[in-house]
């Protein structure tokens, strides 16, 4: 009889390193760290086979606080380094930790390409709509008019939508969570980990020092039921206190609209059912913005395809192993003896 010895199940605290955490008191990153540690425990992650790769910024300090392998690299380039790690050893479980400036400004190109290639990693974007570590400049996700040291009269640029960017880049998994909504965030992180291929998770993270309360419009406790909608595959897209409100497709405008079930002839059947394999719907959900719409959270899109490194190694396997070795290669042309 074969007996398999299960490794001891670890608790969230077992994934914490011995390093003192150095984020500002009250920073949303603490909550995300907690959610990630819980996720690792829940999925039974093997610390020695797990690698956290980060770029630069407040979020990028993340790997130091985990008892896994960690690589704190340079600004914007974590996806490139993570791709190399996966190509060298596809068995490793690789997570990329990034911020809005890191992911969408200096590293935008790498984000585009790691998603397009579908490298099997989890990318966690800590979006706080500000450059924190450099003391508060507006970022590529800052809303127009953001006052910051570099934009004293307010920023004039339009922000990029992280999830729409990811979908446009060809991501096969796009999800959203909020730093302080632990249960929902852990669910999303687990789904991201379960997805084979590049998983993109945007986490709304409050910067308590430079952009405090920027997401209050939909994350403040009292507005959550009306200002958020959590997408669940196969379930109607309902939200509100008694799940009375829902999203309906207006086919004439090809747009979503908010309806109340039971009012103006709206029945439960009129409410859209979330299909996580529908990229068009995912895009529509990602684009919803307050105050007219709730912010969509949860797994917006999940439609797996073969990961990049699996296809690469398929080609390597197809090339075969060279029996003759290098000496044969060196002679594989016109030669002559002297």
């Amino acid at each position, binding site marked *: 009889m074969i007996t398999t010895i299960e490794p001891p199940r670890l608790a969230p605290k077992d994934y914490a*390193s011995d*390093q003192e955490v150095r984020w500002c008191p009250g920073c949303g990153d603490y909550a995300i760290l907690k959610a990630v540690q819980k996720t690792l425990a829940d999925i039974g992650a093997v*610390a*020695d*086979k797990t*690698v956290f*790769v980060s770029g630069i910024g407040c979020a990028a300090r993340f*790997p*130091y606080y985990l*008892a*896994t*392998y*960690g*690589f*704190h*690299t*340079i600004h914007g*380039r974590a*996806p*490139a*380094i*993570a*791709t*190399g*790690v*996966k*190509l*060298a*050893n596809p*068995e*490793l479980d690789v997570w990329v930790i990034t911020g809005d400036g890191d992911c969408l400004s200096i590293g935008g*190109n*790498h984000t*585009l*390409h790691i998603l397009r290639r579908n490298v099997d990693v989890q990318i966690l974007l800590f979006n706080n709509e500000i450059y924190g570590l450099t003391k508060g400049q507006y970022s590529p996700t800052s809303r127009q008019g953001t006052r910051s040291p570099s934009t004293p009269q307010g920023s004039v640029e339009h922000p990029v939508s992280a999830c729409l960017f990811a979908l446009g880049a060809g991501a096969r998994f796009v999800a959203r969570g909020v730093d302080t909504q632990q249960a929902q965030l852990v669910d999303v992180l687990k789904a991201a980990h379960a997805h084979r291929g590049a998983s993109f998770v945007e986490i709304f993270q409050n910067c308590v020092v430079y952009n405090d309360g920027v997401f209050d419009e939909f994350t403040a406790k009292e507005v959550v039921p009306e200002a958020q909608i959590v997408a669940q595959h196969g379930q109607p897209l309902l939200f509100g206190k008694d799940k009375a409100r829902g999203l309906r497709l207006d086919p004439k405008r090809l747009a979503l609209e908010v309806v109340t079930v039971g009012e103006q002839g709206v029945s439960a059947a009129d409410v859209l059912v979330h299909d996580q394999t529908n990229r068009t719907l995912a895009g529509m959900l990602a684009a919803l913005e307050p105050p007219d719409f709730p912010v969509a959270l949860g797994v917006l899109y999940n439609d797996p395809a073969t990961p990049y490194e699996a296809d*690469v*190694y398929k*080609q*390597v396997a197809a*090339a*075969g*192993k*060279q029996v003759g*070795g*290098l*000496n044969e*290669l*060196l*002679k594989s*042309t*016109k*030669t*002559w*003896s*002297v």
Partner: protein
Amino acid sequence: MARDTKAPPRREAREQAVIRFAGDSGDGMQITGSQFTVETALAGNDLATFPDFPAEIRAPAGTTFGVSAFQIQFGSTDVLTAGDELDVLVAMNPAALTVNLRDLRVGGTVVADLAAFNERNLLKAGYQANPLEDDTLAPYQVLKLDITKLTTDAVRAFGLSSKEAHRCRNMWALGLMLWMYGRERQATIEWLERKFAKTPPIARANIAAVNAGHAFGETAEMPADIVGYTVAKADVKPGLYRTVSGTEALAWGLLAGMRSAGLERMLFSGYPITPASALLHTLAALKQYGVVTFQAEDEIAAIGAAIGASYAGSLGVTSSSGPGIALKTEMLGLAIATELPLVVIDSQRAGPSTGMPTKTEQSDLFQAVLGRNADSPLIVLAAASAGDCFEVAIEAVRLATKYMTPVILLTDGYLAHAAEPWLIPDVDALPGFPVTFRTDPAGFHPYVRDAKTLARAWAVPGTPGLAHRIGGIEKSYTTGHISYDPDNHQQMTNVRAAKVAGVAADIPEQGVALGNSSGALAVVGWGSTYGPIHQAVKQARADGLDVSHVHLRYVSPFPRNLGELLRGYGRVLVPEMNNGQLVQLLRAAYLLPVEGLSQVTGKPFKVATILEAIRA
């Protein structure tokens, strides 16, 4: 006496010869030259080639900027350069003639395709009158042939379109040149059969064109001053030979180095750039030897993926040219700070900025040695010839893995494409330098160093009990934890410098390539100037001058005896294809009044240029 039988063709013996095929980008001059090279190698001559082509892929036909050329020098004695002056110039059109004529020696031979010297082509080349008809070519022997018509006649039987028939002209010209220097045609015929295996009429037509060109030389009524030549076999070390380009030798050297290091996998990542792309192409076809290739989204991602691969226990290698290396600079700093092995190949080209992508230069020496923020030492090696690329690539892998450091390997556009005969090494006989991955968790910290090499341990993700964090932020001397301690930064800066400086004890002492270890003059070079410097020093010594050739493979750190060696000469002259970079590094390192000889024309040095400087 009646001459009822044709006299055997006259042949004169030559020690060396230099010929250049020149035509439009679409005329197939590179493959013509390559085939002449193969036949010449098989004839037992030593040789060196210089392919020279425009950046434009298909420049408008007949223009001067669309001229593509292939030069070869071959002989019965040592041949180390493609030659200063041409003995024969094959000009497929007027543009090829006007661009290349300046390099033909007085008394040399022009072979020109009469049919291509029409009014339209003459105008495009800037000729007011036909140079084949006025006295432009008076100082030369001229073989005016209607190659177009001779080719068309030769391939008539194969049912080709006139365009297809026209494209066989290069093979006709090749056939004629093979006749002129008494080469065989068999390897070319076999190559054409393989190349056009799917279109037999094209194969047969091209073969017919080669044969017709050859037969024309053999039987035609040639002008009295046109003769054939014989070039005796070169006296070289016995063994099995092939021709090799710098790109091929580099690719194989990397694979051999990986094997010697006992590594199972190499990740080679690059981004398309001239002239470095050829290495990516070569390795992409060699996956069966353990290389995974990755065409990244940009230069930064290319080096980033290589660093990620090294971190995960493979050999990370990336390659580019000057502008791309500039983009990789910040990542080099990361590899230095995290002390990971990495090989970076820089195929230098003329700059700054885009410069002249297809033209060669050695102007990235400062960039390689010094071009990073902060105190960030790494190892810099330079390959001297196409064949040398093999050995230097192996050495780069050895030093990168032994010292846990990036190594920049400098080649250039000339080396990348140039071909030379190569004594095929026995890879099985190469010495091994197996790497050791850290597996023991006892006492492990990521920055614990080997007492001798000062290299930190290579601890790879996936190893039980060794989970740790590294990064570009300054690390505590042993634990690797983040540290802003002032004394620690001083200590880390010192140890990074000491580690790389210590490599000098692990590399050979600087030798003398030719001449004596002291004397009146040392000509010091690095990289692809080896050939012209060597030839120049050889000639100068034959003339009785006290001059020696010193050639550097290790440019950072310098070999430990270099200062002492150079002090033994009255004068030190450094020819470089840049504005004087090694000169400054040598002056800074040894406070010696080193003299420079700069040339930045996008072309290799001529032997005569260096000889003149030696005599000055």
